[in-house]
């Protein structure tokens, strides 16, 4: 095609200019993966004797504990989440509009607060239910042991199912009536239709939700520590906080990250296909299934789930809060030195808010690059920036302790390290929100702006930014919500005296001061409901 080689080289330069945004996106991706790479290198270059000792003494037990918990919680949340979504989206069960909201609200309750309430009720000695049974001479009735594997699995299932519920609910909602009708016309019974058409078409939604739950379980610290079930996360925490043994912690973290990366890889794979039931122009909602006399059972199932996962925990928190505020001794116990609840709120809000702002700012170049310049490199950058999904809070803390000590010593023991941890851990959520906002923006809008005499930067400020702002806000709400609830990294990285609501709730709960912990826990839940409400409003299942 080209006649001279001089032409050819000049054309190649002109044809493929590397966009400036690629450098910004690359920097963000690099920053996001440094903690993981640092830990992996540290783990792999660890003392072989230490490796051997850990493999012989700890690894198998931790592996099986962690995997069983992940398996149990993932299965449990899938069953619970999908059945709840099916009841509210596909049947005529009474009250389903209110249940839709109530079923999503447990996302505002961190599982460790759930675990605290669970313990306060069921402890063999001093638990409220145990006391009540004794008081009524019913102590011969067996109570389940609240701690250990089953206790942890139970608490984590009832506070994590909303992930699966929301994703499968959206999938049920976007299913076109014609799929079901076509199956019926081709001779399938309703039952066969459900298994052969409905479930397969929402399977990507269920799988995506389940994999996110699995990643969350690998990272979960508070609940398993409180209920005394040892997993990788809690073992690493003990090594770091109790024994100050960073080498052992690095090795355990390396193994944990590898496990998480495998799950994350699967999640990336499924993510692109999570919606193959898109709402086209001829979309009609599927007709509701009439449960008839069975409606009462559906209603009870919904009510039971909502009671366990939201209404009872929040009522108890409210009850205890009132009591502790009325009791002057407990109330004064809430002061730590000269600081009180207000300072905990302030610390929680500014650290989470700052993290949310940074995460969203960093996510913008990634989103623009991957959406406007699709290709292998931009996709790689996008995925690298989402590696935070696979780094549990304890591991983020470990790597930041080592990195900051070594490279940024002036930041050591400042709250900024806590903010950095939030950003590393939760930037994936911002990246996904920003990417989906960018994807919904037709490139022709930006092109129109260029032809109407705006340069690239003016176009971003005057057209792109105003139009993706709702998506950016959603991303920041998500990061804010997650940071607010974050526990292990905050505990490990906070400077002395930096107390957030989550930290205070945890310390009081661990010491068994449930009444004292209640107001802070309630505040945490209420503050989480605000961004959660904003996020849920954007979900398709809450739109009519």
């Amino acid at each position: 095609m080209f006649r001279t080689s001089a032409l050819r080289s000049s054309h190649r330069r002109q044809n493929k200019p590397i966009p400036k945004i690629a450098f910004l996106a690359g920097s963000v991706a690099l920053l996001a993966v440094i903690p993981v790479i640092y830990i992996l290198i540290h783990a792999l270059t660890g003392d072989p004797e230490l490796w051997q000792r850990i493999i012989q003494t700890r690894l198998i037990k931790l592996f099986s504990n962690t995997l069983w918990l992940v398996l149990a919680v993932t299965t449990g949340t899938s069953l619970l989440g999908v059945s709840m979504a099916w009841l509210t989206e596909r049947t005529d069960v009474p009250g389903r509009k209110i249940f839709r909201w109530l079923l999503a609200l447990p996302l505002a309750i961190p599982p460790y607060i759930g675990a605290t309430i669970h313990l306060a009720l069921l402890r063999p000695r001093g638990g409220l239910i145990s006391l009540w049974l004794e008081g009524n001479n019913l102590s011969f009735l067996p109570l389940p042991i609240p701690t250990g594997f089953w206790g942890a699995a139970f608490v984590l299932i009832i506070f994590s199912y909303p992930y699966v519920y929301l994703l499968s609910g959206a999938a049920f909602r976007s299913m076109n009536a014609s799929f079901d009708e076509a199956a019926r016309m081709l001779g399938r019974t309703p039952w066969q239709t459900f298994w052969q058409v409905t479930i397969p078409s929402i399977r990507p939604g269920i799988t995506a939700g389940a994999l996110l739950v699995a990643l969350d379980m690998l990272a979960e610290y508070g609940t398993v520590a409180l209920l005394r079930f040892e997993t990788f996360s809690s073992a690493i925490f003990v090594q770091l906080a109790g024994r100050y043994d960073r080498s052992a912690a690095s090795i355990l973290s390396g193994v944990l990250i590898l496990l998480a990366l495998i799950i994350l890889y699967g999640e990336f794979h499924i993510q692109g296909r999570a919606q193959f039931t898109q709402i086209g122009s001829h979309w009609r909602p599927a007709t509701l299934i009439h449960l008839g006399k069975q409606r009462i059972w559906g209603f009870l199932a919904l009510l039971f789930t909502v009671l366990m996962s939201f209404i009872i925990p929040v009522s108890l928190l409210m009850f205890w809060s009132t009591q502790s505020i009325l009791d002057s001794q407990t109330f004064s116990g809430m002061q730590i030195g000269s600081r009180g609840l207000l300072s905990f709120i302030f610390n929680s809000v500014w650290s989470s808010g700052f993290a949310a702002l940074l995460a969203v700012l960093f996510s913008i170049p990634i989103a623009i690059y991957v959406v406007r310049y699709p290709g292998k490199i931009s996709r790689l950058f996008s995925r690298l920036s989402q590696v935070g999904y696979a780094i549990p809070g304890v591991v983020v803390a470990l790597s930041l302790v080592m990195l900051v000590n070594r490279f940024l010593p002036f930041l050591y023991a400042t709250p900024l390290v806590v903010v950095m941890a939030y950003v590393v851990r939760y930037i994936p959520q911002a990246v996904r929100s920003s990417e989906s906002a960018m994807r919904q923006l037709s490139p022709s809008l930006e092109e129109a702006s260029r032809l109407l005499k705006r340069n690239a930067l003016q176009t971003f400020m005057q057209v792109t930014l105003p139009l993706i702002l709702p998506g950016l806000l959603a991303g920041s709400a998500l990061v804010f919500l997650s940071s607010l609830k974050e526990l292990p990294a905050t505990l490990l990285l906070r400077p002395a005296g930096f107390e957030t609501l989550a930290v205070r709730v945890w310390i009081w709960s661990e010491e068994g001061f449930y009444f004292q912990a209640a107001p802070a826990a309630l505040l945490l839940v209420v503050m989480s409901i605000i961004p959660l409400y904003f996020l849920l409003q954007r979900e398709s299942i809450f739109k009519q």
Partner: protein
Amino acid sequence: MKLEIEQLSKRFTGNQYPAVDNITFSMQAHEILSFVGPSGCGKTTTLRVIAGLERPDQGIIRLDQRTINDDRTFVPPEKRNIGMVFQDHALFPHLSVFDNIAFGLRGFTKAEKKDRVSELLNLVGVEALAKRFPHFLSGGERQRVALARALAPEPALLLMDEPFSSLDAHLRLEVREQIRNILKASQSTVIFVTHDQEEALFMGDRLAVFNQGKMEQIGLPETIFHDSGSRFVAAFMGDSDFVCGKSNPTGFETELGLLDQQNDYSPGTDVEIAIRADDIDFELNKQGNGRIINRFFRGAFNFYRVELDSGAIVHVFKLHTEIYQPGERVLTFFNAGHPLKIFAR
């Protein structure tokens, strides 16, 4: 010349064939030029390269004697003084109709903006909609606002990328007549891209037919239609069928008999003859050269599809009163009052 394009080429990475293959043409001021061709033929890419939205691999683009692209120059889209109407209209959803139209009026005072916008609202006939947001406009209204926005800064050249494709069929006919009148009234120089031959004929003062990245032919609609420069143009623009033939000194021997037509081919050359439904006729004949395979009722006409014994398919117009059944044997013959287009094989 208003617009001059020389040897423009563009190949997308990973594609074997260029999307735009060595295109050269020029345009007069106030002219409307239709780009037409099947999808993927390079017409939209050519448009986007002219707009500056894609970088060409080579080629020179001059607008009003100013070079906006060559080996060393690439003027960014915002500095080209070119307007564009997009396929999806691309009206900014966060701005009202007024602000959308005023968006391109940089350096205007508030009063000047107001005057210019109302002038355009008036021109496209949507004065009442100034305060509305794009979301609340009908398809035809959006179309006209998009045009007003593109025309507002008085661009040297206006590009329109399949602007009617998102409209319903009945609305399309109505809107395109309005739009053509507006373009003529505003004396715009326009390149209009479409994949619809009929729309191209209607909109364009001239037509450029694209195929596989190349501009196959450029010229007046009548020329393109009656004097197609290539077999592709004849097939795409003229709905032509083709029958094979061999030249001899007095004409061409074909399975429809001898076509009596002077020609410069050396005797014995294999050719293809382009025929339209009004160039041939048939009569029922058991010993004929083909058979009817279908009849389509077209109001005043019956439109017959005939399969010749060689397997070639031809179409024939008959009056609405002449009805024959599919399957009947027919004798098909030439019946044109003018020379037919011949292409060497």
